């Protein structure tokens, strides 16, 4: 099953596209803001996090669409495995392929925006805890908008508001790390969100998939 | 408590804010009511038309269709 899912999900080109998108969005910030390092530094946590949220959104847009079109999703539903497990596995595979590269890259990009030392570590950890939640939420949106006209735009409307807490806590952790060391609270809250999302959101994804295929 | 209409309308210098709030609220609620009323009349008209057509059809064709 794991093999199958990684086969379904992993397309090298997709990974490249999403990573390139992530980097490009981050590049836009200094270009729009001007090269003043101090200003850039202040904006760095927000920049990286917003870019990560957008990258997650665009990469998740097609999460179930191909499987839906060619009928694989029906087979997933009929598989002996409970649908929640299948959904979780699919999101996990997606995150490993497309979310993890962003986490790995983030210190380099943070550095380019003027973050340093421990801040880079906090940035990476916050993304490590936060992006799985984004993936799970986005997967709910992707499942809800399956087979819907203008699904991509609609998905953004549905899901971006739900991204707010993760964004607040994630970017907040890095900002905290810049001024004091009180970022543990942010990180542990992010962890709590992840812990709540992991068992609950797959249920929502499975429910949404059932509705889409009914 | 107000010194005439002018004083009331001036709202102690906050006229724009206060009347802006109440005006928009009233306008929006009114608009909602009007739109809903129009939708309701449309639905009724459609249904009545359908009923009439069905009645006419049943007279001419022996009442197989509703």
């Amino acid at each position, binding site marked *: *099953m794991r093999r199958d899912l990684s*086969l*379904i999900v992993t397309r090298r080109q997709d990974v490249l596209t999403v990573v390139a998108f992530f980097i490009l969005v981050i590049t836009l910030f200094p270009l729009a803001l001007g090269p003043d390092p101090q200003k850039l530094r202040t904006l760095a946590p927000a920049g990286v996090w917003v870019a990560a949220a957008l990258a997650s959104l665009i990469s998740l847009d097609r999460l179930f669409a191909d499987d839906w079109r060619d009928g694989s999703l*029906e087979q997933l539903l*009929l*598989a002996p495995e409970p649908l929640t497990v299948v959904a979780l596995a699919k999101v996990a595979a997606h995150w490993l392929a497309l979310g993890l590269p962003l986490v790995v890259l983030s210190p380099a990009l943070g550095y380019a925006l003027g973050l340093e030392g421990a801040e880079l570590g906090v940035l990476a950890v916050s993304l490590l805890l936060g992006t799985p939640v984004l993936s799970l939420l986005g997967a709910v949106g992707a499942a809800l908008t399956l087979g819907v006209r203008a699904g991509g735009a609609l998905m953004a409307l549905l899901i971006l508001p739900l991204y707010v807490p993760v964004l607040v806590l994630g970017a907040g952790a890095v900002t905290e790390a810049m001024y004091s060391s009180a970022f543990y609270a942010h990180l542990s809250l992010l962890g709590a969100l992840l812990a709540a999302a992991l068992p609950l959101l797959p249920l929502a994804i499975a429910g949404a998939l059932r509705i889409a295929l009914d | 408590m107000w010194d005439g209409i002018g004083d009331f309308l001036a709202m102690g210098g906050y006229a724009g804010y206060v009347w802006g709030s109440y005006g928009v609220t009233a306008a929006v609620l009114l608009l909602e009511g009007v739109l809903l009323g129009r939708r309701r009349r449309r639905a009724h008209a459609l249904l009545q038309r359908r009923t009439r057509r069905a009645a006419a059809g049943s007279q001419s064709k022996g009442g197989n269709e*509703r």
Partner: protein
Amino acid sequence: MDTGPVGRATTAPSPPHAGKAAPRGELEIAGLSCRRGDQTLFSGVSLSLASGELLFVRGRNGSGKTTLLRILCGLTEPATGEVRWRGQPIRRLEEAARRELLYVGHRDAVKEELTPLENLDIHQGLRGERGDLERQLDALEEAGLGGREDIPVRYLSQGQRRRTALARLLVSPARLWILDEPLTALDRSAVAWLFERIAAYLREGGIVVTTSHQSIDGLPEPRILDLD
């Protein structure tokens, strides 16, 4: 309440054990009806299928054949009625029971960028079956894909794509096949092969539910459900 085209279900020939004391078939369908929008596609579909029986669902385009098949395998929820597989509601089957059902849909779940062999492997992995390379190769060979096991499906023809999907029938043990338009895009020899396969499967005690717009001469005498 609805005056949409109401399909009437007729089952013929009726099972020999009609009456109250009928023994339970393995697949039981009771009072199914289905609605799309405010149109009733069909209603009052009841029948029961026992081991070795073939059900052929017939009907115009849009009469609800695909929907009925999807209801039978538990993908779609009917407006009324229920489907039971060995006494269990089809939408709440346990793991083992779900493995007994094999569905090849209209959309055939074949991945274009993968080879037939990989497709088969994925299919088995998804059903929790151990992928057996020999068996997979045998199946592809029998389905007429010998020598093409390793070419991504997007380079194959429609018919070969369909054969890839049908090769699943050979690798997975199952008690019930639900095949939606399996003959689409198949050439004559492939149709003959599939009919032979279905006949053999029925002799082994399998149950098959299928639809087609093409002639089904050559299949064992089916029970027919007419949705028109």
